[in-house]
């Protein structure tokens, strides 16, 4: 088959005309869109202190863990030392109430995901 034949066949595609109510239908949808309030964005500003606290806690935990390992580079950290690191981390987490922060963040995340999913589902209907 020649290129010219292919070009000729694919170029003479028959155009279709949009249905008579198409413009009205689009404008109705646009009108609805214009009156719908914009979606609520994720409250990053409010979540920021929590995220920062978790990051700091993780950083402290890592620094403490590396500190223990660095003190005895050749030897493997003993069970007691690891237990001490874990206890320090837990104490720190308790102090900054990391559990509650993590729970709040998880609930927020689930709420946002759920509402996005529900909105998308109702939009597709």
């Amino acid at each position, binding site marked *: *088959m*020649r290129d010219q034949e292919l070009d000729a066949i694919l170029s003479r595609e028959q155009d*279709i005309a949009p249905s008579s109510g198409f413009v009205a239908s*689009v404008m109705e949808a646009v009108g609805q*869109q214009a009156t719908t309030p914009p979606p609520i964005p994720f409250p990053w500003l409010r979540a920021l202190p929590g995220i920062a606290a978790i990051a700091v806690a993780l950083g402290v935990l890592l620094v403490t863990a590396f500190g223990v390992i660095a003190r005895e580079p050749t030897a493997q950290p003993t069970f007691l030392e690891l237990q001490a690191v874990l206890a320090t981390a837990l104490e720190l987490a308790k102090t900054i109430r990391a559990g509650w922060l993590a729970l709040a963040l998880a609930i927020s995340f689930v709420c946002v995901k759920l509402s996005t999913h529900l909105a998308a589902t109702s939009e597709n209907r």
Partner: protein
Amino acid sequence: MTAADDQADVEKVIAGDISAFEGLVRRWQGPLVNLAYRFCRDRGRAEEMAQEAFLRTYRSLSGWRRESTFSTWLFALATNLYCSELRRIPARTSALDDIVEPRDPRAMDETYEAEDRDRLVHRAVFALPAKYREAVILFYFHDLDVAEAAASLGLPQGTVKARLSRGRDMLRRKLSPHFAAPELGREAS
């Protein structure tokens, strides 16, 4: 249909005059519905996809940076939507290998002379892998203009040329047995 009219309507819509959007819809409904139809070959679905494209256009009007014409931006937005939509819910297509190759091309040639060869070619286009099909559809929709097709697809012209060449090569290979005097090996310019 002028770029100035488009720009004027866009400014009005951004300023809050929603009714000005109707001018844009009236001017571009034909091209957008037809482009969608070339992607899905279903009139009802084409109108649904075009409507969604107009809605997205409305939502993103403030994002048009005037670096390109409104039409180029509109086609890029619509193409992106149509490609995603077709990847999400593919059109009813047949695999390229499902187009049966005749055992004796000369015998089949007579049969296909009586049949609609255009339909066979379009079916073969539809059976191409998505990235080649999209390049082929956009190239012929934009009247053989690679630059326009590339702008709509948001790809470099070289990439579109390569996909077009490969796509047409696949089409020639698949369709040659159905047509007389096969001519292989020519690359798309």
